[in-house]
């Protein structure tokens, strides 16, 4: 069950369109690896190539020591869970789950026992004789999971498994899958566009964009240490500041952001600062000209439960968004002048021709960084 998946230089073209470009990574055995990226990033195609549902134009796929690339779907022993469940609609739940065993001509008692075992595992034992159209979306996906796991695959592949479900059901199933994985320990590869899902579930994340791998790392690494502007902008929300490099800082009007030591002077650069890294202090106290200290006016305070979202306007007109715990607000009001301190900025060379990541807008979802998960309560 602890078979790692190794993908090397995988390439796939549909006609003239290059969906997957030279993708390589290793999914460690026994862990959940997430393929995270927006629509069209090629992540589903990579998954389907690993399953054998698409043929790569170039590259290799290995499961443990076994070279998979020439093997047919049937021979690969992968469990695959589809976004829209793909349950066999004219078979009962029990027959669906038993299918992989029936195909391998397992004796009836072995089949029945395994089906029972799995239905218990996914907590759907009373539904054995029902048909898929009598089940809710969440139940169907659990059946799909049981069905995929029944033949004891070496690897579990999930293609946006919760994409077709309601938000609450999605949350519930996410926790449930987490627990299931801890219990079973099957190497799993999860494709998703939901970064919250990836950050919560995965042991390792492969961020993909336009067919390429942007970064491979743990959730903390991806979040705190984005390797490319895309990752910085895609994972978690961020303030995006475009400026010029001088003296190891990104300069943007009155704003001076550290973290550009690795970039050449004069180069155009983009700095990313997470809203919760924008530290706000009441004005009055030493207005130090320390790194990163500068003043701003609170334009708007939005109260979001335990968090307050502050929209801050700088002297030269730029806007920053800060997330501050309510208790630290200290009576600050709209219109107040405050001092800002930008922590943990990440700076990248700006690609002049590439699409700039959008500035964070006032309606961006509040992201819950991994370290804060414990205090988030019911999200």
């Amino acid at each position, binding site marked *: 069950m602890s078979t790692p998946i190794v993908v090397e230089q995988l390439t796939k073209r549909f006609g003239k369109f290059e969906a997957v470009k030279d993708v390589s990574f290793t999914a460690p055995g026994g862990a959940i690896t997430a393929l995270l990226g927006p629509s069209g990033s090629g992540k589903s195609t990579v998954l389907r190539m690993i*399953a*054998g*549902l698409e043929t790569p134009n170039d590259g290799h796929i290995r499961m443990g020591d076994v070279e998979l690339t020439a093997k047919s*779907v*049937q021979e*690969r*022993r*992968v*469990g*695959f869970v*589809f976004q*829209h469940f*793909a*349950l*066999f*609609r*004219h078979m009962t739940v029990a027959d669906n789950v038993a*299918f*992989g065993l029936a*195909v*391998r001509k397992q004796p009836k008692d072995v089949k029945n026992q395994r089906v029972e075992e799995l239905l218990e595992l996914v907590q759907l034992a009373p539904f054995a004789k029902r048909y898929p159209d009598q089940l809710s979306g969440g139940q169907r996906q659990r059946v*799909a999971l049981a*069905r*995929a796991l029944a*033949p004891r695959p070496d690897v579990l592949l999930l293609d946006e498994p919760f994409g077709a479900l309601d938000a609450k059901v999605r949350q519930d199933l996410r926790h449930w899958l987490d627990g299931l994985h801890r219990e079973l320990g099957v190497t799993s590869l999860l494709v998703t566009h939901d970064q919250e899902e990836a950050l919560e579930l995965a042991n390792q994340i492969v961020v993909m964009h336009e067919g390429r791998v942007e970064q491979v790392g743990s959730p903390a690494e991806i979040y705190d240490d984005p390797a490319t502007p895309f990752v910085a902008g895609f994972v978690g929300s961020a303030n995006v500041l475009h400026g010029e490099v001088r003296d190891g800082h990104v300069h943007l009007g009155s704003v001076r952001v550290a973290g550009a030591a690795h970039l050449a002077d004069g180069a155009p650069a983009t700095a990313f600062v997470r809203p919760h890294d924008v530290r706000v202090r009441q004005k009055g106290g030493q207005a130090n000209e320390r790194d990163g200290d500068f003043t701003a006016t609170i334009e708007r305070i939005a109260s979001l439960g335990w968090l307050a979202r502050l929209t801050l306007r700088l002297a030269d007109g730029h806007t920053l968004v800060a997330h501050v715990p309510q208790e630290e607000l200290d009576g600050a009001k709209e219109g107040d002048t405050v001092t800002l301190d930008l922590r943990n900025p990440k700076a990248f060379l700006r690609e002049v021709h590439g699409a700039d990541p959008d500035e964070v807008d006032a309606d961006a979802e509040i992201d819950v960084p991994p370290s804060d998960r414990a205090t988030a309560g019911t999200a």
Partner: protein
Amino acid sequence: MTLRGAAIVYLGAMVALPVAAVITKGFGDGLEGLRSALNVPGAVAAIRLTLITSTLAAIISAVMGTMLAYALVRYQFPGRRTLSAVVDLPLAIPTLVTGVMLVALYGPNSMIGGFLDDLGIQVIFTPIAIMLALLVVTLPLVVRSVQPVLQELDTSEEEAAATLGANAWTTFYRIVLPAIRPAIVGGTLLTFARCLGEFGSVVLVAGNVPNKTLTAPVFIFQLANQFRPIEAAAVATVLFALSFVLVLVTGRLLRRKEES
């Protein structure tokens, strides 16, 4: 006159009236008349021949039609579009011309006909010719019934079956077939009903020997030509009853499918 009224008059006058005429004539002397009319020598044999050839043709057409539909939808191959167009040809070609073509090909003076004759195999003027004619004429029916359903099928169920280890045949048999079964059945019933009444292609190639190669429709024609309308109507009513039930069932099947 309302639209509805126009429709009712249209169908009532053009369809219901003629059908009523035939049934009334066939049952003119009551059930007794029907039975005695069926005692016309050759009637039972003709109906039996029609039933047998129609059943066989329907079964063959069902299998080949499904295969054709599957190949046209799921496979890529050179000539696919041409094949698809050719399949529709019988929808356009007059049935009589089909009969003429078969005579030209298998008739006693033709290339293949003469060749087969030397081998001792006779095609024309045998039930085989009837089957051939029926198969040609009904070629598109099952194909066009199954094709749209196959096209609409979400392949993820089949992909799931493949990931679970099912080979191509198992996947087809256990996943695809149940989904297209209603379409196959509908197309087959349509084929059968069509075969029951087929005249134009059969009349030239069958030979029309009573008790041997005389089908019911040709028999009815002969009776009508001999100014024996009551007997003709009797046989026609029996034939009609058979296909009427069939077409009704098919129609209801199809409409239920559309509603679901």
